[in-house]
């Protein structure tokens, strides 16, 4: 079996960052619009 666990880790981290990052972006943008 090929040794490619690093790719898996990279992908999982990347997807996590994107999704959490986007969630955060939405949270911050809506909060800014609520305050205004």
């Amino acid at each position, binding site marked *: *079996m*090929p*040794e*490619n*666990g690093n*790719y*898996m880790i*990279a*992908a*999982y981290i*990347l*997807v*996590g960052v*994107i*999704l*959490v990052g*986007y*969630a955060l972006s*939405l*949270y911050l*943008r*809506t909060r800014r*619009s*609520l305050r*205004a």
Partner: protein
Amino acid sequence: MRMLRVGRWITAIGLVLLAGVYVRALSFTPIEQSQGLAQKIFYLHVPAAIWAEMAMILVGLSSIFYLFTKDPRLDRFAASSAEVGTIFCAIVLTTGPIWGKPIWGTWWTWDARLTFTLFLFLLYVGYLLLRSAVPDPAMRARYAAVLGICGMCEVPFIHLSVYMFPTLHPMPIVLQPGRPKLPGSMLTTWLLSLGVFTLLYVGFVVQRYALSYLREQLEAVSEGGAGGGYA
């Protein structure tokens, strides 16, 4: 704002469940023999791809209804679905090469699905750019709807053209992951992931919709203020 709270809750639950899927996929799902650990990228890549495409179809459908009814809620939904679809598309475009490199030996191949996703991404980017380039809300909604409908109609043709690419380019050499027949445990993980991505789509779209609504309220209050962004 109630819609926003609902959206935030759905998203939060989605993210928690995502963590659960991560744990299940990484530790409790068997490793595929020929591809090794990298195959597990599949559990994120495919559900994201499904929703990236679904989101575009929904943009197209709501655009059609918008042109008939001129209901601004449909336009807000279209804008939201487009933004969320772009994010999911980006996920597919990044995880694809990361999966491809160990399996196929190269970062990029003009593989049908990856190429399709690239073109889908271009459609999304065009849509968002058009929205940001039109300051007047009514005109923006109309133009976006026109583009959205064209985009949705384009999708089957892109499907058609990318499935011809393999005849022109050589097939990847290192490993040929065919359609994996998913044994039970893997199938369950995949389904759970699909469910989580669905939840996240909904949560994101609801929040983004709320954002559009809030921004419109603000623009209405500051009449004739510098209107930027694509609401």
